[in-house]
């Protein structure tokens, strides 16, 4: 086997030498034969002649020997490839356009496929990932689509369900880790002991939690993540058994998780909005209370029994939810939804992904159309060459094979170029780093992506090379040889005689238009979105999270004092005009809402319960954010703990309950508060959840009367707000070194980040639309310039008969315009059918927006006509005398 292979390889690469050896061998053979004949008495020259006659021609023998070497196929392939390269070099323009088309088509697909591969195809890094689910409370009737369940609900689900074989109660919050050089804020997950095993975590040091640690009264233990262990404990191998101080309490380290274990906010969005946990600990006492329905701050992760679908689980949970709805008199729209963990992670990006995939599929289709078209033109121009080869005895199969070799070679080169292009795309995507697009860190050109690229390259080559190849192989020998490979004098000028080519261009334009329109819709929609007033002024505001807890800040008075002092000292910084704090800053993951009672307001029998967003703010918060005060007053220093409680509500709440504008002086009460508070002011509506999201009614309490430990501190500056992040952090540390500061960002930055997903989708689709436009231009150019080349004689004839150059020009443009307009009509109809799919991605722009449809049609027409410019000038420059003589 091995000798065989070595022999064939030698034959392949040293074929020339082997040929000359055979030649020498045959010459020797002839001389021996002649000598033998000489010995019988013939004269030398006669002997030689006889010998030649007996032995026959050496050429045929050489050919037979060559065939016996088993390298015929490979040799011919190499020959074909060499020939193909030579023939590409002869038509560099067409070749470049084909390669560009292929690179764009394949590159765009590879890029999107790698996104899909990272986002949708890579399973989550947990055992049985498709059986993992997360449970959410939903009350769409009052605008709550994703709320956190309570321990009581967890208990109900655990005891009453028939579909889960395991479930864990989780909550995440930030903690202050002291007893290090400096206090830092860390994210911790309090979870029942079954969470980590359910997610397949195995400790790299020590152990995970024991079932008995779920019960109250057990020693407080903690399992560190690899990251925290490395960063704060320098990977100390003797960490087990050591104590760490979290929020002032001692916890014993019992284990360390490996670096491979990940549990991001994407997977389990916790109420505290920690990006990822730094450690795990057993549940707090309130989590172990099965009657605790009040604290809706938990996540429930549950694993489906084998063979149970999410739909079946939902049906089972619906029964439990109905019971809770009745027993606890929840809002009539209350349900508990079961969401597969994968959907939780990928979420609404799936629609965008599918649209992108559709878009690149169209781009590839256009690219392939182009390639087919260009190859067809090329093949037609080469008819004479094929005719000559056919005349020389090349079989049809041989010609088809030659052409297929060419196209496959082209598409493979195109594939390589496309891979390079997609690598650039991926690099750009990573650089943009859209914060809220999940799993981008997993993006890359893995084997699956490369296999995909190779497959589409090959498929493109075969599919779109086959038709032109078969067509070229069917050449009419005599006609082609006679006409010299040029189009005949009659009919060369009209597309009527080449319907296929015209149809391809029409199709190309028809496919490009929906892409252009889709991209333009996203661009318009993004512009609309960016124009939405956020309800505050994001310019010149720096913001940061602070956690004022711990032994030195363990009373409301101390916390109030801390924020007052920080506000005062910050305001005195040169360049700062105002400073304040709020418990939940717009565009951050912090939240807070609850049930309220309105004095004198009895809900109608079927009316949903009244839930409003609830924030705690310092007096100057509204001033810093420039949230307009519409009526009444903002908080004052006099709103102290000893004074009657007050509240500020937003316009939305005021309009809802007091549509006649008499909200000031009315009373409201939070359901976990027993005293009524007086409304003293009404402020503007703030887009808390992003510019594209709806708003809910908001109620603010003064920080002096209802202190919160964790707040976002904000300051308005006169100059670049970024410069103040460190300074304010230093101030906070100097007032109390045990207050960690985190998540420092300007409000403009937060606003930009909140639009990252929309910007990303818009840029991607715009990129593809630009590709489509380039491809369409290439397509039109290819066909029109082919038309001009083929029609040279006809044009010359017309010129000779007195046609003016202008009429030639208008004829060429007319051909382009005709193709483009048919394509546009088809494209508009296609767009109408397609764009409604993306309605969910649009913001205040209709999927059938006439302005977008019109302007994009115009752009496409313009590009198509521009592509005719070069061929048109070429047509004008035809010299009738020379052209006709050449005929």
């Amino acid at each position, binding site marked *: 086997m091995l*000798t*065989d292979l070595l*022999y*064939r390889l030698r034959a392949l690469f040293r074929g020339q030498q082997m040929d000359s*050896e*055979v030649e*020498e*061998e*045959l010459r*020797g*053979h002839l*001389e*021996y*034969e002649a000598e*033998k004949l000489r010995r019988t008495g013939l004269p030398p020259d006669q002997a030689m002649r006889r010998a030649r006659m007996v*032995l*026959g021609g*050496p050429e*045929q*023998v050489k050919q*037979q*020997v060559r*065939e*016996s*070497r*088993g390298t015929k196929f490979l040799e011919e392939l190499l020959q074909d490839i060499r020939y193909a390269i030579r023939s590409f070099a002869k038509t560099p323009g067409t070749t470049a356009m084909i390669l560009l088309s292929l690179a764009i088509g394949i590159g765009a697909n590879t890029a999107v496929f790698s996104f899909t591969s990272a986002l949708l195809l890579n399973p989550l890094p947990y055992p049985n990932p498709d059986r993992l689910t997360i449970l959410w409370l939903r009350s769409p009737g009052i605008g709550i689509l994703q709320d956190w369940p309570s321990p009581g609900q967890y208990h109900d689900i655990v005891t009453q369900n028939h579909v889960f074989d395991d479930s864990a109660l989780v909550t995440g919050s930030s903690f202050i880790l002291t007893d290090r050089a400096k206090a830092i804020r860390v994210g911790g997950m309090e979870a029942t002991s079954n969470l980590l095993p359910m997610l397949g975590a195995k400790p790299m040091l020590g152990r995970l939690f024991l079932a008995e640690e779920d019960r109250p009264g057990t020693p407080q233990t903690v399992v560190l993540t690899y990251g925290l262990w490395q960063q704060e404990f320098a990977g100390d191998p003797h960490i087990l058994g050591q104590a760490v101080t979290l929020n002032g309490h001692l916890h014993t380290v019992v284990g360390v998780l490996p670096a491979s274990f990940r549990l991001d906010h994407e997977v389990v969005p916790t109420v505290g909005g920690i990006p990822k946990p730094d450690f795990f600990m057993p549940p707090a006492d309130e989590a172990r209370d099965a009657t605790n329905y009040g604290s809706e701050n938990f996540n429930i992760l549950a694993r489906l029994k084998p063979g149970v679908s999410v739909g079946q689980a939902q049906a089972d949970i619906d029964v439990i939810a109905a019971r809770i709805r009745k027993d606890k008199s929840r809002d009539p729209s209350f349900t508990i939804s079961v969401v597969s963990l994968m959907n939780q992670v990928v979420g609404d990006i799936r629609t965008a992904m599918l649209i992108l995939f559709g878009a690149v599929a169209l781009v590839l289709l256009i690219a392939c159309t182009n390639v087919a078209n260009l190859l067809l033109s090329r093949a037609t121009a080469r008819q004479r060459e094929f005719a000559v080869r056919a005349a020389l005895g090349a079989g049809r199969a041989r010609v088809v094979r030659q052409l297929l070799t060419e196209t496959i070679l082209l598409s493979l080169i195109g594939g390589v170029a496309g891979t390079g292009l997609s690598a650039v795309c991926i690099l750009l995507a990573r650089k943009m780093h859209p914060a809220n697009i999940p799993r981008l860190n997993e993006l890359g050109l893995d084997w699956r992506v490369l296999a995909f690229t190779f497959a589409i390259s090959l498929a493109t080559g075969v599919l779109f090379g086959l038709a032109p190849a078969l067509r070229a192989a069917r050449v009419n020998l005599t006609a082609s040889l006679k006409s010299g490979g040029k189009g005949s004098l009659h009919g060369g000028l009209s597309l009527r005689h080449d319907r296929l080519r015209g149809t391809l261009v029409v199709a190309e334009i028809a496919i490009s238009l929906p892409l252009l329109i889709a991209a333009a819709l996203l661009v318009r929609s993004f512009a609309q979105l960016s124009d939405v007033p956020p309800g505050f002024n994001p310019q010149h505001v720096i913001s940061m999270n602070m956690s004022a807890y711990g032994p030195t800040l363990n009373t409301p008075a101390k916390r109030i004092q801390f924020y007052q002092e920080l506000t005062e000292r910050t305001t005195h910084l040169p360049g700062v005009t105002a400073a304040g704090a709020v418990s939940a800053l717009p565009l951050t993951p912090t939240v807070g809402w609850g049930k309220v009672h309105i004095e004198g307001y009895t809900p109608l029998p079927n009316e949903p319960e009244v839930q409003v967003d609830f924030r705690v703010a310092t007096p100057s918060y509204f001033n810093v954010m420039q949230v307009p005060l519409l009526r009444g007053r903002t908080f004052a220093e006099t709103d102290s703990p000893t004074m009657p409680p007050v509240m500020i509500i937003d316009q939305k709440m005021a309009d809802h309950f007091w549509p006649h504008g008499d909200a000031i002086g009315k009373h409201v009460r939070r359901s976990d508060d027993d005293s009524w508070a007086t409304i003293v002011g009404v402020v503007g509506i703030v887009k808390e959840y992003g510019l594209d999201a709806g708003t809910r009614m908001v109620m603010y309490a003064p920080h002096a009367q209802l202190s919160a430990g964790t707040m976002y501190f904000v300051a308005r500056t006169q100059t670049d707000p970024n410069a103040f992040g460190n300074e304010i952090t230093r101030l906070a540390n100097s007032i109390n070194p045990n207050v960690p500061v985190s998540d420092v960002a300007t409000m403009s930055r937060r606003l930009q980040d909140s639009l990252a997903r929309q910007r990303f989708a818009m840029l991607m689709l715009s990129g593809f639309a630009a590709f489509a436009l380039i491809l369409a231009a290439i397509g039109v150019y290819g066909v029109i310039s082919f038309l001009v080349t083929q029609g040279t004689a006809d044009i010359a004839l017309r010129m000779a008969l007195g046609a003016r150059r202008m009429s030639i020009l208008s004829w060429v443009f007319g051909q382009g315009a005709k193709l483009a307009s048919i394509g546009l009509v088809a494209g508009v109809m296609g767009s109408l059918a397609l764009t409604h799919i993306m309605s969910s991605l649009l913001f205040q722009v209709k999927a059938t927006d006439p302005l977008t449809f019109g302007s994009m049609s115009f752009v496409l027409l313009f590009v198509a006509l521009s592509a005719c410019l070069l061929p048109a000038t070429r047509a004008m420059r035809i010299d009738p005398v020379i052209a006709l003589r050449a005929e």
Partner: protein
Amino acid sequence: MEERLELPQGTLDLLILKALALGSMHGWAISERLQQISREALQVQQGSLYPALHRLERRGWISAKWATSENNRRAKYYKLTPRGQKQLETETTAWRKLAAAVGLVLDMTAGESNAH
């Protein structure tokens, strides 16, 4: 001379191996040898001989090297390899068996056929 035999597929390979078993030879010598031994019944054409030699070389049953012949001419000499030797033995046995079996069938008379 006129009554030439057509060699069945693969037989030429076997004959070449056999010829080379007697010693290394160049191409012409092989064809001469086969012709002589078969008493002129087998005349190997160049067009069959050389492809066969290359085929056998590819399979590693023979090896070739250039050398100077007895009358001072450069020629390519073929030699049986150990693997070729083994191949020759297996094929010879197989051929003998086949020939004997075919012979038996061809020699069959009516009586024998009935006896079975």
